[in-house]
């Protein structure tokens, strides 16, 4: 039988089953159930949990643990993630795998504590300083949180690029039935040749570092990162295409908003209107090819981008589609959430 789990708790359990053995965090609503769960759960599996003195300390503990080869993660919400950006940039510079969860709340500043998607730019365009990206997922259900989190460490290890799971307060708090996967066998994981395990006495030193002072060396390093991002785009890009094959109107949305949009699509279909939903599952890399392909379909007249922000993902939608079809926008922000009926009303008023 499936279990009823809250998004935050399901992510924590999936992380443990996926091999997380080190968690460093600092409390903030609406993601507190993740550190709370980890605080007792990691001890059961012989892991390490630290409630750090600040977000800055927490992310640097992740840096250290990841550098030493551990499967380490942290979680926070918008203002806390902003504080972690320096550390995230260093981790990316040092090419360390780890997982970062952001259960987004309304901003800017301390903002509010209700759900938002206004950290899309920060998550997908860098966030900290330097030429880097994270591999960013935008799950839309508790089960998808579990599935993505469970494999996140494998993917992060493979490319030596941090994975960010970009949720929102709603996804963190919602409870849904989930099926939990079996524990991964960590004894079968390959040794990380670059990690500072501290066990190769007498041999060459391992150095984890993000300081590359020579421009030629740093440029080559940035190209290496770029090649990695291209490889990730080729292998890991994921999306959901729901009823777009004959659609006149394609609604685009990610995360929980995509579910609200899916209900809107169902209502509009009942009204006899040909509407579909195109949902990126990876926000970086963005599913450019699929968006371009759908835009080229003759039946498609208009895109409607729906977000819990004043318009952030819409920029990627415009780039990916080359704007060969108009891209309209419907959003709520500040912690307010639209209903399916709100989207239906917008589409009926602005498009039909």
């Amino acid at each position, binding site marked *: *039988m*499936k*279990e*009823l789990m809250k998004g935050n708790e399901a992510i924590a359990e999936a992380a443990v089953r996926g091999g997380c053995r080190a968690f460093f965090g600092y409390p903030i*609503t*609406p993601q507190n159930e993740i550190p709370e769960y980890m605080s007792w759960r990691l001890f059961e599996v012989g892991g390490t949990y630290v409630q750090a003195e600040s977000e800055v300390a927490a992310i640097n503990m992740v840096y250290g643990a990841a550098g030493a080869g551990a499967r380490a993660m942290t979680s926070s919400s918008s203002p806390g993630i902003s504080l972690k950006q320096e550390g995230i940039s260093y981790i990316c510079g040092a090419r360390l795998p780890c997982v970062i969860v952001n259960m987004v709340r309304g901003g800017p500043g301390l903002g509010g*504590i*209700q759900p938002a998607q206004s950290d899309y730019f920060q998550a997908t365009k860098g966030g900290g300083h330097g030429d880097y990206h994270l591999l960013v997922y935008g799950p839309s259900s508790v089960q998808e949180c579990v599935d993505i989190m469970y494999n996140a460490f494998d993917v992060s290890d493979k490319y030596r690029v941090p994975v960010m799971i970009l949720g929102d*307060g*709603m996804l963190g*708090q*919602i*409870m*849904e*039935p989930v099926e939990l996967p079996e524990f991964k066998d960590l004894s079968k994981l390959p040794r990380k040749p670059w990690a500072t395990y501290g066990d190769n006495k007498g041999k060459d030193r391992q150095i984890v570092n993000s300081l590359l002072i020579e421009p030629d060396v740093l440029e080559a390093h940035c190209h290496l990162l770029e090649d990695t991002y291209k490889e990730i785009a080729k292998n890991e890009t994921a999306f959901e295409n729901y009823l777009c094959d004959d659609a006149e109107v394609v609604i685009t949305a990610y995360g*929980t908003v995509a*579910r*609200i949009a*899916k*209900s*809107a699509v*169902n209502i509009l279909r009942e009204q006899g209107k040909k509407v579909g939903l195109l949902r990126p599952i990876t926000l970086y890399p963005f599913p450019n090819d699929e968006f371009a392909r759908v835009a080229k379909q003759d039946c498609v007249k208009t895109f409607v981008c729906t977000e819990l922000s004043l318009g952030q993902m819409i920029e990627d939608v415009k780039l990916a589609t080359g704007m060969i079809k108009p891209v309209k926008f419907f959003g709520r922000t500040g912690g307010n*959430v*639209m*209903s*399916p*009926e*709100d989207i239906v009303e917008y589409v009926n008023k602005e498009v039909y």
Partner: protein
Amino acid sequence: MENKIIIAGFGGQGVQSLGMFIAFASIHDGKEVTFLPSYGPEMRGGTSNCSVVVSDKPVASPIIARPDILIAMNKPSLAKFEPKVKPGGCIIVNSSLIEDKVQRTDVDVYYVDANRLAQEAGNAKTANIVVLGAYTKISGVFTPDVMKAVIEHKFAKKPKVIPANFKAFDLGYALE
């Protein structure tokens, strides 16, 4: 079948646990469900609500604009959510705390003296279970046996409270 329910009241009235009982029953019954609690600076005495969607198919939107069923445990909740109920839907009113009558004429209304019936059941804290019984009867989505199995399971560590909760459920379920 898709049953969209909004449950609202004071913090401490068991609003969230009432919603969770319905969610647990859904899993028990092999149905799909989403349970979305309100979260925020509320605490005991503040306002509290949750949205529950039960369906045969995977649930898309967890956000409910037009509930099929409103369970109003206190007066401010009825005032806030009464206009949103879908025409032809229904409102379950905790008449122990709400003297007002529902103004809408296009919905079915059930007045449940939940707090009094809870005392009759032997435990004043079971008012939400009385309402759960009424919901089970009115919605017809779950059998009383499923709900009782869930109640038994949830109180497995406090078996002493199970008889009062069963009685509260029966009193709610017996309402016309």
